[in-house]
């Protein structure tokens, strides 16, 4: 596609493909990447957005946590068909109990009555209506306000383009190993190129994993034909898949619940059971405890570990079973056979993408890689402008297309950060009992994003970036202060009390505030030079300015 119609080599062709496929979907990809990255911590975001729950400070001993929950359940739901108790953990400071009736499957993933308890006192806690982190999580693959299928198609196509951009980028960038550590700051376009390459290459395993697994997750939407050939309908396929991918033992439990409730009998001490499970797992954290047919002669207790056995085995968690009357550990089921290689690879990709059942260390690494990935997309978008700026200046006036990309870049990158902040502010500033407040929080997100776009359109590029960066920096700096003022647990207390789910949100806000302030200062100091850059790129890129 050279303007002079000379033949082009494969590398030039790839470069063209990379540049334009990257630009067309770059804004959407940045939004997907950033909200997806935040979704690694969607539980923590939700925890922060429900300040009514902040007062729950779990006692350190899981056995005690279990006893407190059981006391509540015995008082309120002694005749339930089953109880599930999710203990507080490193990502949550509350206990969540699920109560199911006699005729419900005790192992169902949905259904039942969910009650959030104060982990220390066992009192039920009510919280404000909010979508919390689930909004960002849903947005990253279903956007908002569009029919679900359409949105998944749009995201699927964007993911496909992302994969194209990664592969064409690798081919275009010929000196991957020679340039592996190369970042030359203060050299304009060169620096942006280096930053884009570095953020791409250094986290390349992550980029490939997250993009390819994103495609796998949307596979049945964008490539339904194989399934349609073999199965009558989608449901049949999913059931069959669940059988092969996750051979969870469903035998005893289902039957147990369906049986008559049995003669009343006294339930064993769950505290002792939890303590035994803790010893058996050598201190690995306990996720949840299910009590099937409590207070009957058939009572059975299942203790499930918080972290999965491995990312190669999806939905597979270490489980210990106990007799509900004597509290004795029952013989373990034969271990599920390890999945075939293809299934294991599929499982590993999907589990890492979803961060399901991975421990907090790996979660942080995934999050940081996601931030590097967002910086890669952002620096690529900025690079598109920086590269074309001299040409635009030669023409004397910026073309409409160039101006559009410039404004859209500022709004898509800095504007999204402001939109997320607006979502958090709305969460705390709207009255807690307001009708439809969850929707208004989301409206605040989009209103702020649109306002950022409008601002970027009317201001010159440099001023737009400075204004938006200053707004984002100030917004995130104030959030940790707003938290205690609107009923949340202050940072100094949450750290002392070990409520890391809440503390890490405040700390992350402060880190983002510092990041935006840093880029702001870089850009302002840089001002005035002809080949100025529209700063922002995160990590490495901002230092280029």
């Amino acid at each position, binding site marked *: 596609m050279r303007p002079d119609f000379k033949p082009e080599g494969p590398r030039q062709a790839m470069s063209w493909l990379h540049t334009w496929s990257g630009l067309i979907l770059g804004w959407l990809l940045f939004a997907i990447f950033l909200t997806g990255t935040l979704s690694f911590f969607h539980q923590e975001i939700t925890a922060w957005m429900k300040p009514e729950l902040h007062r729950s400070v779990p006692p350190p001993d899981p056995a005690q946590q279990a006893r407190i929950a059981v006391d509540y359940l015995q008082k309120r739901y002694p005749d339930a068909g089953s109880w599930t108790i999710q203990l507080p953990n490193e990502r949550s400071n509350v206990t969540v109990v699920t109560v199911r009736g006699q005729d419900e499957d005790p192992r169902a993933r949905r259904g039942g009555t969910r009650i959030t308890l104060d982990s220390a006192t066992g009192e039920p806690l009510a919280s404000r209506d909010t979508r919390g982190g689930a909004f960002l999580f849903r947005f990253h693959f279903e956007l908002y306000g569009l029919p679900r299928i359409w949105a998944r198609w749009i995201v699927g196509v964007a993911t496909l383009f992302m994969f194209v951009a990664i592969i064409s980028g690798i081919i275009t960038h010929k000196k991957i190993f*020679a340039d*592996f550590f190369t970042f030359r700051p203060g050299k304009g376009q060169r620096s942006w190129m280096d930053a884009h390459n570095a953020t791409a290459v250094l*986290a390349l*395993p*992550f980029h490939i994993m997250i993009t390819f697994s994103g495609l796998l997750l949307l596979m049945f939407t964008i490539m339904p034909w194989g399934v349609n050939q073999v199965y009558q309908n989608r449901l049949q396929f999913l059931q069959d898949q669940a059988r092969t991918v996750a051979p969870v033992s469903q035998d005893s439990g289902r039957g147990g619940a369906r049986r008559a409730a049995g003669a009343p009998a006294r339930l064993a001490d769950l505290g002792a059971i939890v303590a035994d499970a803790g010893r058996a797992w050598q201190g690995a954290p306990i996720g949840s405890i299910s009590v099937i047919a409590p207070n009957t002669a058939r009572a059975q207790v299942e203790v499930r570990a918080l972290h999965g056995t*491995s990312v190669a085995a999806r939905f597979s968690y270490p489980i210990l079973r106990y007799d509900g009357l004597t509290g004795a550990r029952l013989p373990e089921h034969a271990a599920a056979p390890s999945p075939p290689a293809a299934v294991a690879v599929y499982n590993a990709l999907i589990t890492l993408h979803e961060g399901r059942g991975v421990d907090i260390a790996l979660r942080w690494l995934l999050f940081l890689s996601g931030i590097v990935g967002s910086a890669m997309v952002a620096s690529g978008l900025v690079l598109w402008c920086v590269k074309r700026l001299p040409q635009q200046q030669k023409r004397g006036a910026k073309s409409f297309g160039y101006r559009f990309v410039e404004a859209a870049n500022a709004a898509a990158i800095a504007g999204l950060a402001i939109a997320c902040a607006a979502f958090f502010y709305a969460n705390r500033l709207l009255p807690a009992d307001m009708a439809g407040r969850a929707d208004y929080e989301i409206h605040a997100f989009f209103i702020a994003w649109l306002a950022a776009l409008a601002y970027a359109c009317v201001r010159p590029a440099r001023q737009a970036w400075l204004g938006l960066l200053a707004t984002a920096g100030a917004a995130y700096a104030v959030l940790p202060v707003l938290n205690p003022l609107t009923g949340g647990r202050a940072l100094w207390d949450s750290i002392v009390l070990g409520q890391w789910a809440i503390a890490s949100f405040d700390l992350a806000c402060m880190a983002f505030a510092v990041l935006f302030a840093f880029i702001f200062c870089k850009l302002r100091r840089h001002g005035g030079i002809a080949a100025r850059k529209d700063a922002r790129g995160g990590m490495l890129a901002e*230092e280029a300015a």
Partner: protein
Amino acid sequence: MRLFILVWCACALGFMSLAVSMHRHQEQVFGKCLDRVRSRIAAAAGWLFLFLGLALCVRAGAPSNMISYWAGVLTLAALVVGLCLAYRARQLPALAAIAAIVAIAAASVS
């Protein structure tokens, strides 16, 4: 945390050795090019350290989890080595010494 420190130090030392095996970075760090034998040794040491990091990881848990963990730590280690080369190339040997001392300290505390 101990595992993270150990693996990070091993990977950072690996990347530093690999960087020092390349002419461009030899100039940056030492102000001159190293001879071929030394470059080869540096490259070999680099790969060795990276695989040491992998071995430390895999020993500590389910292989699929820990390979993912290793890949994540690789990114963080390479990022720091890259930034050091960009801004403080001459201090790379000092960073290497610190990483080595911290790694030995972390390995001996248990």
